[in-house]
């Protein structure tokens, strides 16, 4: 069961700034003696269209926070951020640009 996520998306100076918080243990190979558990893929969608597909690694801290700056955007645009980890768990959150 994936813990909560939280996201803020704000428009300013022609950019949309997205800040998203994720609950995840992000445990490494070394910490777990071979049973790492970490987010592998992060996907950002704007109004259903994928704009960022990121691969991240064990090197990212527990409960990670990501910020993205997207060119343009308009108030009310629907931003969706989802993650997929190496065990197949997934979670997503949505927010409208404010």
């Amino acid at each position, binding site marked *: 069961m994936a813990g909560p996520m*939280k996201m803020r998306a704000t428009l300013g100076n022609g950019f949309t700034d997205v800040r998203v918080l994720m609950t995840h*243990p992000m445990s490494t190979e070394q910490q777990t003696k071979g049973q790492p558990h970490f987010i592998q893929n992060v996907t950002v969608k704007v109004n259903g269209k994928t704009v960022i597909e990121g691969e991240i690694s064990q090197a990212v*801290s527990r*409960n990670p926070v990501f910020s993205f700056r997207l060119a343009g955007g308009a108030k009310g645009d629907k931003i969706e951020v989802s993650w997929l980890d190496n065990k197949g768990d997934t979670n997503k959150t949505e927010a409208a640009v404010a």
Partner: protein
Amino acid sequence: MRAVALLAAVALAGPAAAQSQFEKYQQMTAEGSPVELFEMEGEALWRKPQGPRNVSLEKCDLGKGPGVLQGAYAALPRYFADADRVMDAETRILHCMVALQGRSLAEASKRLFGNADNPSEMEYLTAYVAGHSRGVRMTPGTEHPKERAAFALGQKLFYHRAGAWDFSCTSCHGQENKRIRMSELPVLDRPEDARPIVATWPAYRVSNSQLKTMQWRINDCYRQMRMPEPNFGSEATIALNLFLTATGQGAAYNGPGTKR
């Protein structure tokens, strides 16, 4: 030899340069803080019916009336007539678990300090409660005779040297320009030092990915001083919390915070 040279360089750089480094580090950790996630989990727990009476904590009176969260944390610790004692936020939450939900004190306080993999109910709840005081000035209770007695006890404990190392709180928090790793050690009996500290607990610690409460902070200070472990919500820990909070009163609450 190299370490010695480095230390000398740091000393020469002077307090002004060092200060900005600490502040920059503080700012960077705060920007990447997941503390709001703890508030969200805390909200779910606050609303979750639990205990023999199967009720939530939504009617818990934190000093502003049953169920009022706005500004409640910033007005703690304070005297509560129904319990006839001074309480801080964590102690009051524990009180509500017993008084409202009908849980036994032993069950409710079985696991007050969590860990990174499994934070405690108390840690989540404290984050949730504290989050409703952002921007509210800190005004702990200082008028009631029991509040004054607690302040006086806290002040006495702050300077009281004891234990295997003959430490008091002032051994670390009594001199200017001291630090442990990247944490400056505030002189906690000075209002200007106490203000930013009391305004940012509870706090997420980036070094161990855990949200910690003020009750934990005081408990762990006693461990670091090699003194016997104080009880959670004991007269002594609440008195110290009131002494620190009253010393730093007037600051706008700016937590739950983020620390090293």
